[in-house]
């Protein structure tokens, strides 16, 4: 990997340079408006102002990969986002929902994020940047990061084309991971040198902490508990729409079989004596658990999207992790690694079948 050390204020030049030197045709990056941080798509570099105040902001609104889902474009778009969002984008590339040549994925270190509404409300206390100590302090005051972030093992930027790794003293390491990433940085005429950004110790600490937090989460351990857990669900399917890796153009649950209406519903009610309406609540969630089981990056967008406040992080990412374990698959880790369901080994998994 090739990279260089920069100061926070240099980042503005980096992003402007990417646009000015035509490395990318446009950039999707976090933008600060007062207390809020949200994504903008920029074509004119002059619109980028002090990006360091926004790109590290611990605020999660939408998953940036969800914005890029299903794009068919020839232009190149740079996406500056947190590790979970970039991992989702990499999964979308594998799912053929994103052209790898049309995106430059720029990953930024994350320390865990608040939902965007909590972030905006408590901006005075949270500020532009947080670290784990500050997050602990805020938790004491009742300002907690998202549950998905609490159990996240991938907070460090080590995926994507370019990484922006935070260092002490308002400094960052900017490095190209892929060939495309190195080319992009070379075009910016940055003083690149060979380097290894090894943060093994930090990473181990994050993983251990995340595993501990996950253990503490309430478990859903029977069908009755699952029913209870999903009792308030109104089958609005927002969790699906906001999920970056739920990508079917025509969802089964938008079709007559999955979303019966009118006469179909009457027939079903007649057949089963009584049915719940809206129909298929449990079926919908269980199917979605299966469909995202190998690709779920655990970003928690489903939970944020739920209008009824169901803590879906305890369902989707937690179960997905168990499935990913049996295939030894980490979504978003490697763009070359095939998805578990499109490959196989001749001898495997026999102990998991009965």
């Amino acid at each position: 990997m090739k990279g260089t050390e920069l100061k926070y204020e240099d980042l503005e030049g980096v992003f402007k340079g990417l646009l000015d030197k035509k490395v990318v045709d446009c950039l999707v990056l976090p933008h600060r408006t007062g207390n809020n941080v949200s994504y903008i798509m920029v074509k004119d570099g002059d619109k980028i102002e002090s990006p360091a105040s926004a790109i590290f902001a611990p605020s999660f609104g939408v998953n940036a990969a969800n914005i890029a889902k299903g794009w068919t474009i020839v232009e190149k778009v740079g996406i500056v986002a947190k590790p979970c969002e970039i991992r989702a984008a990499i999964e979308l590339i594998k799912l053929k929902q994103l052209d790898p040549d049309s995106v430059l994925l720029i990953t930024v270190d994350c320390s865990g994020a608040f939902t965007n509404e909590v972030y905006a409300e408590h901006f005075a206390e949270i500020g532009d940047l947080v670290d784990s100590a500050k997050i602990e302090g805020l938790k004491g005051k009742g300002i907690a990061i998202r549950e998905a972030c609490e159990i996240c093992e991938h907070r460090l930027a080590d995926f994507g084309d370019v990484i922006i790794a935070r260092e002490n003293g308002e400094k960052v390491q900017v490095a190209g991971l892929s060939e495309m990433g190195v080319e992009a940085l070379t075009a910016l005429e940055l003083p690149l040198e060979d380097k290894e950004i090894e943060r093994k110790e930090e990473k181990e600490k994050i993983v251990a902490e995340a595993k501990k937090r996950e253990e503490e989460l309430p478990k859903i351990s029977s069908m009755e508990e699952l029913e209870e857990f999903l009792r308030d669900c109104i089958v609005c399917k927002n969790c699906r729409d906001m999920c970056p890796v739920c990508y079917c153009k025509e969802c089964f649950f938008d079709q007559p079989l999955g979303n019966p209406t009118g006469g179909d519903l009457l027939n079903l009610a007649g057949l089963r004596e009584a049915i719940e309406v809206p129909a298929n609540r449990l079926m919908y969630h269980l199917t979605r658990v299966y469909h995202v089981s190998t690709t779920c990056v655990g970003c928690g967008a489903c939970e944020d999207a739920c209008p009824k406040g169901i803590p879906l992080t305890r369902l989707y990412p937690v179960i997905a992790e168990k499935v990913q374990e049996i295939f030894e698959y980490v979504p978003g880790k490697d763009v070359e690694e095939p998805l578990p369901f499109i490959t196989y080994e001749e001898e495997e998994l026999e102990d998991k079948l009965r």
Partner: protein
Amino acid sequence: MGEEAKEEFEPKIIGFTCNWCTYAGADLAGTSRKKYPPNVRIIRLMCSGRLDPMFVLKVLLNGADGVFIGGCHPGECHYIKGNFYARRRIAALRTILKQFGMDDRVGSYWISASEGDKFARTMKEMTEDIKKLGPNPMRGKIL
């Protein structure tokens, strides 16, 4: 109802079998007059790879007590690799169902067209296993 409850619980098992191996195996069990419990209702698929895990979820939510999945032995699929894909899907599905204590209700077996005996034996074993588990907790629920 009182009379019925005293009777032994007879599980309903839905079987998904591949056309080329397990279905033919079941056929052989029949033609060679092997005895096995009548609890399984077989649905023939062209390949175990055709089995969408949603089928399994659906029958479980609709109250089936067990799901039997039968395919050709790995490496002997009529379509070369259909059962390799099926194996991965079933493994993932059972991992999910395990969280809710439902995985033991789903079993998949590799039974070839010449293994009528194995088919009958598997049916017997599976019926016994499901009897021990008791009725599906989702049975009779308004869903």
